[in-house]
């Protein structure tokens, strides 16, 4: 692409591109997000390409591979425009029919989404999963090609940057962001505009000419993939957000710190940076103004703690990612001891939206009233990654203040296999489990912390009745134990002791005073750790203890696991439903199931390792767990 030399030229180009995009050709959109990739969408894309070239359909139909379309459960997903027909679980063999139908305009019945009542739904917008969302940030993922800057420009991209560079002062930009009430989407919920303001002020006072903006894309919370989806599917929006932030604080250098475990996102972002540079949207004298800014990528090394801002900075500087004390504010002394603003991917992605559509449009969505103070509410939307034992897993965007029920049942379609909801885990290893009685609680920064959890970056893992809360708490403690950087004794040792205690409880060796001991360790851990990750590391344990104390007690006193998960406390047996089909015996890795064909089988408990394979393979519900 040729270098864009002025704001006027950018606007003209956008108009041309947008007009060119309104072609009469139907567009076959294939989701290229990580979920659909795991479901084999590349083979599907190859098939579409092959068919289009073989049948010479190039001028009749257009193929578009996008970022994440959100409905991962139904992947690979294909959407055909202009009708916006949604096709689920599309296989290679279906490609030909979809192409034919895209041209004829008549939908392929068998690939349509079927709702709970068995009704077929044709249009994406009518499917409950989409209908109940508000897709301010994720909607665009379905219409742009992540690897094409033209595609982003045609969809109105970089207009916010043009607006900023057409006469807004840095202070105006900061003011807009403060007034919008935008709060950090990485978990803490600190007002973004306030952060920028304090950095700009501190830097001006210090007379610092070097200032940094950083994008935290080290999405380390297991069970969260929002940032991956945004960065991979729409990298330019993150670049645009950082450009605006850099203009506001007066920075000329930006860094995206991205997890090495996200190769698709790194590829997409690298391509986008190169295009933006070529188009003159990054580099010296952007759009002919005296504003200069560029961005480079730093790949993470697979350490959870590097998601913590000061650890992340240590990592960029080439050291191990150990957090430092927060009495030195990053606004004054961050990366290389220079004033620094650090926001996460989703926060940056919200910035162009606010500037382009205006503060009022943003504050119209969400909770509270932020006209006086951005702390007084949660505005805009929030993206969640809905996963675990829920029917519609995927990427979900709802207005702040939507209830857990709206998200899990309205959008998520309820619990898998008709099981009962037990809890939802939000906020990853820093968050907690929320039980059924709080399902109608509005989800925003402040409400979630009231019940012992937190927004976190937006991972939402749903648990059903077959989950054991003690085991789940142990899972997080084991995770944190491995990921603790080891700097603070309370975190390093506290987590190791918690792991010990929880392990013995799940093995039926819990002691009568263990619960008090857990509480004491948790308190020390929260109080004595330097960084937020250590400070919140007790949350998964404390929240399960608070809401599911009876489950802990059952493990300790009755030596029973109500969720039937903890291996040492359960026993597999075969009931009278057994038809003697021998499938379980054939699959048992221990060869400890015996019985003649067509006769009831028996499990030898002494040899059983409780792997659960027999229960999985039995078609008659004959294997029971006690």
């Amino acid at each position: 692409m040729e270098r864009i030399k002025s704001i006027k030229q950018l606007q003209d180009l956008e108009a041309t591109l947008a007009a060119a995009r309104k072609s009469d050709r139907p567009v076959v959109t294939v989701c290229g997000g990580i979920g659909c990739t795991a479901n084999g969408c590349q083979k599907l894309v190859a098939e579409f390409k092959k068919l289009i070239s073989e049948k010479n359909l190039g001028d009749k139909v257009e193929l578009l591979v996008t970022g994440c379309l959100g409905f991962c459960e139904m992947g690979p997903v294909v959407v055909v425009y202009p009708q916006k027909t949604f096709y689920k679980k599309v296989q290679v063999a279906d490609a030909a029919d979809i192409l034919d139908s895209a041209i004829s305009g008549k939908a392929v019945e068998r690939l349509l989404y079927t709702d709970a009542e068995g009704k077929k739904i044709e249009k994406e917008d009518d499917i409950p999963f989409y209908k109940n969302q508000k897709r301010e940030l994720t909607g665009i993922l379905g219409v742009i090609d992540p690897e094409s800057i033209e595609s982003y420009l045609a969809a109105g991209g970089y207009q916010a940057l043009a607006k900023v560079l057409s006469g807004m002062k840095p202070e105006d930009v900061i003011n807009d962001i403060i007034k919008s009430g935008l709060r950090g989407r990485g978990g803490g919920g600190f007002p973004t505009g306030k952060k920028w303001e304090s950095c700009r002020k501190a830097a001006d006072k210090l007379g610092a000419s070097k200032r940094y903006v950083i994008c935290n894309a080290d999405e380390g919370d297991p069970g969260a993939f929002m940032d991956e989806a945004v960065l991979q599917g729409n990298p330019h929006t993150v670049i645009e957000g950082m450009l605006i932030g850099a203009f506001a604080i007066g920075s000329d250098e930006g860094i995206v710190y991205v997890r090495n475990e996200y190769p698709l996102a790194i590829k997409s972002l690298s391509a986008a940076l190169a295009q933006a540079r070529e188009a003159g949207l990054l580099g010296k004298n952007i759009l002919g103004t005296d504003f200069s800014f560029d961005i480079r990528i730093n790949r993470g090394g697979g350490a959870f703690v590097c998601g913590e801002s000061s650890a992340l900075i240590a990592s960029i500087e080439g050291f191990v990612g150990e957090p430092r004390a927060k009495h030195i504010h990053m606004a004054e002394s961050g990366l290389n001891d220079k004033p620094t603003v650090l926001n996460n991917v989703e926060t940056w992605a919200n910035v162009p939206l606010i500037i382009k559509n205006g503060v009022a449009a943003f504050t119209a969505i969400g909770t509270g009233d932020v006209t006086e103070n951005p702390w007084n509410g949660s505005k805009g939307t929030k993206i969640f990654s809905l996963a675990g034992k829920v029917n519609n897993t995927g990427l979900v965007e709802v207005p702040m203040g939507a209830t857990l029920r709206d998200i899990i049942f309205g959008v998520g379609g309820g619990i898998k296999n008709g099981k009962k909801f037990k809890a939802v885990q939000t906020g990853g290893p820093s968050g907690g489990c929320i039980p059924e009685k709080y399902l109608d609680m509005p989800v925003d920064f402040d409400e979630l912390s009231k019940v012992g959890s937190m927004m976190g970056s937006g991972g939402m893992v749903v648990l059903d009745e077959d989950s054991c809360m003690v085991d789940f708490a142990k899972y997080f403690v084991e995770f944190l134990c491995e990921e603790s950087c080891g700097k603070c004794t309370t975190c390093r040792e506290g987590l190791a002791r918690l792991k010990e205690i929880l392990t013995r409880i799940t093995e039926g060796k819990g002691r009568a005073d263990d619960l008090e001991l857990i509480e004491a360790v948790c308190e020390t851990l929260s109080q004595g750790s330097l960084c937020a990750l250590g400070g919140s590391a007790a949350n998964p344990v404390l929240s399960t203890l608070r809401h599911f104390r009876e489950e802990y007690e059952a493990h300790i006193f009755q030596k029973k696991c109500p969720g039937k998960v903890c291996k040492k406390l359960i026993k597999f047996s075969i009931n009278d439903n057994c038809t003697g089909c021998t499938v379980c015996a054939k699959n048992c890795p221990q060869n400890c199931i015996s019985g003649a064909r067509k006769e009831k089988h028996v499990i030898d408990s002494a040899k059983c390792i409780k792997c659960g394979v027999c229960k999985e393979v039995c078609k008659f519900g004959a294997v029971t767990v006690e």
Partner: protein
Amino acid sequence: MASYDTAKIDAILAKNEYAEANLLAILQDIQAAEGYLPRPALEHVAKSLGISIARIYSMATFYKAFSLKPRGKHICTVCMGTACHVRGAGRILDKIEENLKIKAGETTKDLLFTVERVNCVGACAMGPVVIMDGETIGNATANKINKVINDIKADSKKS
């Protein structure tokens, strides 16, 4: 040990401007080129950048992405993220470990397989997820993965 060819390490160092601040990237590039961090390579980096080998060792052992031991020809990574965990990732890992007779983090004696755990690859909706040589396998089951492993084993015997 045979003398180590430092030419490619020099190329990596040059690409990263011989800057200590780029140490993480330098180690990542070596890991990508060699599959692990060979000691002679690290000694060469220490000498070239004028930093201690201990400083490099601290980085190499802090970040999970690095291995100080040679890894297998095929890398099998089991996602142990929350979503995969609740959908039975642990059981799949058990079965893989049983099949290959190694634990996560180890490499088979014939250097054919390394089994690793990762804390989340972002494909949560498709959990449990296993990544075999860079290819993401969604809705994984122990049987599905062991079949892939057994196929690779059979292929390697043929050749």
